[in-house]
């Protein structure tokens, strides 16, 4: 019997699409019957989507070049 605890232990690989076939079928069978785990997997997928799409830590394009130039100035000093 595949429990909610089993589901929580195994669904990481399922999310990444690399669960073993036998585990995958157990998870899918469990999801057909467990409303709570349906919510967890659905909201976790949405979390990943939000995080992946967000630009929370993105460096503005205009800020890239000054960093590149500063690094290269320091690198050229090191090489000399």
């Amino acid at each position, binding site marked *: 019997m595949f429990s909610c605890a089993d589901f929580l232990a195994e669904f*990481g690989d399922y999310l990444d699409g690399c669960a073993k076939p036998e585990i995958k079928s157990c998870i899918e069978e469990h999801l057909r019957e467990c409303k709570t785990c349906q919510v967890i997997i659905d909201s976790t997928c949405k*979390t*990943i989507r*939000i995080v992946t799409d967000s630009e929370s*830590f993105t460096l503005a394009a205009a800020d890239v070049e000054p*960093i590149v130039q*500063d690094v290269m100035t320091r690198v050229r000093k090191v090489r000399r």
Partner: protein
Amino acid sequence: MQNTAKRHEFELYTSSLQHRMDPIVAAGGESAEQSQPHSRLLALPPILSRTALDLPALRAAEEALTRAVFDCAGLLTGPQQLLLLAAAGRQWHADIRDIAIPCFEDSHGCGQDALAQFSLKLARYGPWCCRADCDELRAAGFNESAIVAAVTTVALGHFRCSLAAALLGRDGLPFELQSDPTEPIPQWRETPAPFISTPPPPTEALDSALDQIRALFGFVPNLIHLQSWIPNLVRAEIHLLEAVFGPEDCLSQMQKHRLALCLAAANCSNYLMALHGEMLNLIGSTPEETLALLDDAGVVSVLEADKALCSEAKKLTMLRRTGNEQFDPKLLTEAGFSPAHIVETAVTAALTNFLCTIGFGLGAVPDFVPVRTFHAKDLYLSADESRPTQNEFRLEDPDREFVARVRAGETDAFEHLVRSHTGRVFRTLYGILGNPEEARDATQDTFLKVFEHIDKFERRSKFSTWLTSIAVNTGIEILRRRRPLESIHSEDGELGFRPRQVRSWVDNPEQVLEKSQTNSLVRKAVLRLPEKYRAALLLRDINQLSTEDTAEALGLSLPATKARILRGRLMLRESLAPHFTRTEGGQRV
């Protein structure tokens, strides 16, 4: 003139070993004349007895180990032992290689095919060894003790050649890894370990030797247990381990375990990585220091001289790669080490190669979680080597050309790498530090470190993964200075998290808030995560590295990395849930 001198030296080694060969040949039932072509295969110089230094304990231990391995005559015949030694010797020495090839060809008619195949694979492709290789030997009539004897004999060959490569080097015989483009690279297979059965309980006589290893390491390594099919061998090996790792006359234990760890990593030995990583932990080195040492980056607390030790030790790797360098004692002399230090370095490295080989051959299961775990993809070491495995293991690195140009001295090529990866490095550091200004400075520092150490980038991973690991270590160093840090490298406590928010989410959460609000919400939620989950989630979901590359960049095992990514995602889900769950009437907005 130089060739004549080398020839003379070669003959000297051959004759000096003749007395060791006679008993073996006798045991194998061959006349001295028949053994003549084989005798040269044993031209592995007894290095320690030839050094001018007074090293009685090490010499005695080397002698005892050699005797114990050769004493397995009841398990293997003399010609079989020679075949096994030749398999290791041919990896290192051009003459041995030339002599060994016909020897392996001859083995086909002598019922030694299985042993020849096994020894060649173990000697050249140790990390690829699997249970099926031992099964082949069993099918050919070798029992568990004989398999241990065979593995140990190949290991002895590597031990002696490593010593020769380190201590003779350019001034003596050309002991360096040999190329053979005709050798097919085996396919890597994961099989249950260990590859041999558990030996019977140790006898009383062996118990005292096991007590010695317990006193030295605090436990009896699995590798030693597995070999107790041959008690004499275990005793000799423990004798050598004590002689090498016990005293601190020249190198300290910390220095020895560090150089052994670095060489184990160069050999892709998870077993020895775990053992030396744990020993370093016990004697006071932090996991962060250990990992940074492996990455050649950010090791503020390790002396330059000690880094030189590790760097030279790694050159004695048994795995052949493009651009293998030779061990150079002069570099250690310049770093302030005496001849006695250099000999200890060589012996420690040779012993590491010996143990790595045994670990590969017997499939020893690590006693601890390795500080870094090598996977199948790590085994295909050179971009020039063909890889007869699935494409997913192929290591295509889009930065390869630019890295090569920088290594060749073209500083301007580095600009391309900086421009390509500034965004990734900044994201990683901003996510770790939580402050964009600090992240900007740390991004520059990361690239400076990368530039300074690019010659040490071993191309086992993609450049971007290596760069990310340096960025992570740079961020962690800053955090450590700022406040006491929960280690991101400890692997405990990953399980047991239970989600509490179990209400359904709206269909399109991205549309609930303005983009800038969502960004701010995610940033705050990510920065509230404990560091170890945050780092894993940052690399996997924000930088979109593969799980394997995330593990590599963090220096964690794959299972630990997966556990952290999942835990990070679930914790983040809890933080975001109040903003995106459905209201009583259905959609939130």
